[in-house]
């Protein structure tokens, strides 16, 4: 596959931005810019990973595929994170599918370059491990959220998470895509989105969701949104804020 190029600064990704200068300089030449189209599969469940991805403007979803083909999102990463922890945790395959949920750019790093730097046990190493802990919290919270919270609350949480990772109020999304993320039927998403639209929090026209009232979404969503946000700040805040 030939990957499209872009000219983003790798430091638009918060984890790369958090690296000390010498560590970043060592990685810099190995960071390959790639543009990712909506729906592109980064890797399949069970597949051997070759690259780790650091999104700058793209959002990548970790989707779980059930044996009957149903899917549900267990986590997402944008400019706040990375995709491919299996590479440095020594598993090299992963039990989930990673798919581009919002088109945009990323940098990818080959397994060898990743491990060379990871094994130096500097801040790159520490940040990657802490991010792993954060992702576990995110997935744990999604488990609880899937069990306990309404489709409408989960939709709000998902829109807020997506909005946090994008630099725009307009999200290119179909109800089908959201249904696959939330693990519900499309009609369920349509009803929930209809409610949010009547309350003038969002507007949905032909595959574009515009967010009008973030505060309103925050007041409807479950506490899971805040729990996961606070965990990110707690685990990674000291690295991120230092350099920004």
């Amino acid at each position, binding site marked *: 596959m030939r990957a499209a190029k872009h000219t983003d600064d790798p430091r638009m990704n918060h984890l790369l931005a958090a690296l000390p200068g010498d560590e970043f300089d060592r990685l810099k030449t190995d960071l390959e810019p790639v543009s990712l189209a909506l729906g592109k599969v980064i890797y399949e469940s069970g597949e051997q990973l070759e690259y780790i991805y650091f999104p700058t403007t793209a959002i990548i979803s970790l989707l779980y595929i059930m044996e009957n083909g149903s899917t549900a999102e267990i986590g997402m990463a944008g400019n706040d994170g990375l995709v491919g922890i299996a590479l*440095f945790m020594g598993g090299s395959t992963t039990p989930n599918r990673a798919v581009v949920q919002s088109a945009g750019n990323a940098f990818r790093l080959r397994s060898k370059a990743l491990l060379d730097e990871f094994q130096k046990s500097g801040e790159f190493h520490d940040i990657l491990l802490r991010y792993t802990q954060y992702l576990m919290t995110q*997935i744990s919270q999604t*488990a609880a959220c*899937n069990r306990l919270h309404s489709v409408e609350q989960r939709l709000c949480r998902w829109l807020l998470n997506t909005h946090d990772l994008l630099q725009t109020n307009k999200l290119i999304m179909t109800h089908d895509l959201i249904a696959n993320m939330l693990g519900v039927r499309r009609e369920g998403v349509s009803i929930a989105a209809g409610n949010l639209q009547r309350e003038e929090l969002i507007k949905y026209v032909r595959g574009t969701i515009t967010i009008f009232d973030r505060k309103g979404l925050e007041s409807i969503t479950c506490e899971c949104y805040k729990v996961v946000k606070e965990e990110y700040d707690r685990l990674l805040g000291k690295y991120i804020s230092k350099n920004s």
Partner: protein
Amino acid sequence: MTETTGSDDPIYNRLLAALPAGEYRRLLPDLEQTPLTYGESLYDPGDAIAYVYFPNSGIVSLLAAAQDEAMLEVGIVGREGMIGIAAFLGVKTSSSRAVVQGHGFALRMKTAAFLAECRKSEMLSRLLKRFTQSLFAQISQSAVCYRFHPAEDRLARWLMMTFDRMDTNEIYLTQEFLSNMLGVRREAVNKSAVILQQQELISYSRGNITITNREGLETKACRCYAVIKTEEKSFPVK
């Protein structure tokens, strides 16, 4: 109450058992035996992770914050793993609750000594990374299991995972406890248990659950059980 373990004591914990003899001997002075008492909380959210625990027997549930102070189980760890993986990942305080769900014994180690050893022992660090991956898979599986599978199938999976980790065919559990484990109301726990009992897979009375048909229970369990088990088996134990 606690005592340092001797080098002749059998090690059932699979992570410790997988260490080369020399590395295990180096850990010994820092390992102390501690009972795991049913219902005891090893960490609560926000607690400093003072110790990490390697269960030799017994089971510990990992719970995520749910709502109104309620917690929901997202993972189970027994002798195949370690409690306190956040410390290994570089975090000083726990974000989840870890509560003993089946009594037994663990070898525990002060976090500082543990981290020092992780820096020295490449094998320990490699095993823990693999265990993190396996726990990660288990938690991911929980996320979809809660979304898609009926309560009685989840109960069957949960019982299978529990019995796999305990050397017994009988466990004691309150409905309230199971209700937190499965994320359903007590009435639904009761209903699920009755279904499994009617199918003669378990017998259930006053909180005592006895497994009467293991194969049947395994068939009843949702596929998550097999997926998690396969992941655990893929561990490079030696």
